[in-house]
């Protein structure tokens, strides 16, 4: 059993910010790099973003140029990583997922984001619509660095940050909620930081 190490506090949040920080999280000023594999470096001319049907058919596809021509929004938000750090007031630029799905006919209830490098994560469709999710291509006013998911990553700030998949290349519409890379191995299917949904059964 663990015993307390006298005088050890670890990284602490400022109590003044506690209303903004979900339970069990601490605030960081840097931007930790988390990665489950080597960083892909897909050239922009080979990059595309696709919306795929449950059967695997490509319904819509944008080249980088086409994607960047779509109207983008600037978002300032807090992000919460399941490894317990939170970062406040991060500023992103991205295309709302609403706009990428708006003229696609379907009756799916879930999506799976898929990425360069093979990473996947699953979300209810309603959690990426109504201004809750973006395909982000800039952070802090600069093009998104590859180590942070560039050229583009999913941004779903109201869920734990593993749902904001780095190096995203598309969304697959799903009839059922199929677990992604981490959700298949103990991590929560939904991942609400305010309810501390870290692991299965939380």
């Amino acid at each position, binding site marked *: 059993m*663990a*015993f*307390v*190490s*006298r*005088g*050890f*506090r*670890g*990284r602490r949040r400022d109590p003044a910010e506690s209303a903004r920080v979900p339970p069990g999280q*601490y605030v960081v000023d*840097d931007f*930790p*790099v988390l990665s489950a594999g080597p960083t892909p470096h897909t050239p922009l001319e080979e990059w595309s973003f696709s919306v795929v049907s449950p059967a695997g058919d490509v319904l819509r596809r944008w080249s980088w140029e086409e994607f960047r021509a779509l109207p983008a929004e600037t978002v300032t938000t807090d992000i919460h990583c399941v490894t317990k750090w939170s970062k406040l007031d991060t500023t992103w630029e991205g295309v709302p997922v609403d706009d990428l799905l708006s003229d696609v006919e379907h009756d799916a209830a879930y999506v799976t984001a898929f990425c360069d490098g093979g990473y996947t994560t699953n979300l209810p469709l309603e959690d990426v619509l109504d201004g809750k999710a973006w395909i982000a291509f800039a952070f802090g006013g600069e093009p998104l660095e590859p180590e942070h998911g560039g050229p583009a990553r999913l941004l779903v700030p109201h869920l734990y940050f593993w749902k904001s998949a780095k190096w995203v290349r598309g969304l697959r519409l799903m009839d059922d909620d199929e677990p992604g890379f981490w959700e298949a191995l103990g991590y929560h299917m939904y991942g609400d930081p305010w309810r501390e949904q870290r692991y299965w059964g939380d």
Partner: protein
Amino acid sequence: MELVPETPRATTLVLDVPGWPGHRAGQHVDVRLTAEDGYQAQRSYSIASPPGAGRIALTVERLEDGEVSPYLVGELRPGDRFELRGPVGGYFVWDGEPAPLRLVAGGSGLVPLMAMLRYRAAVGAAAPARLLVSARTLEDLLYRGELERLADDDEDLRVAVTLTRSAPDGWSGYDRRVDRAMLSEVLGPPADDGRVFVCGPTRFVETVADDLVALGYDPARVRTERFGPTGG
């Protein structure tokens, strides 16, 4: 517990570990700290002391914005307790085999390799040994006096140092980043016996391992241990 300053940034913790089962040269331990509210942080530290030395020594580099290392070298006092798991790792270890021992260290990557050299000296192992260690400055070089003494007393041990940031006047060692020519000069031609142990930050280890293979070293004889971004 005893604290021994090594360099401006590194300190050795000498610990009495009740029930310590003994270790092999090159192994590490996992240190886990628990705060009063249950928050935990865990890091791995290589063991610097040789097998059979009684107390165990961990050399910890203090990372300014780190979480565990400032506690271990700044806050910890004799009588304090923390959790230690280990020794762990059976891959990056040297058990005193007589075949030539070749070691390449970047920064605090010297720690597990020092356990090997100390063990080699303690048991009078027959293995000829060569060490190439890269440090930013002479002040940052760990175990400097001890390395000099070990090499002076032993014609089968060659120690070469390269200083990558600044070298003192009259410095006769290397003063550049480790490269193929340096590896070839210090380690000699690839041999078909013995092992090469490479330890250091991820990019250092990757470059050295690639260079060794390019020089003709059998990848199966090159054992690597990358530190990675520890977050300290």
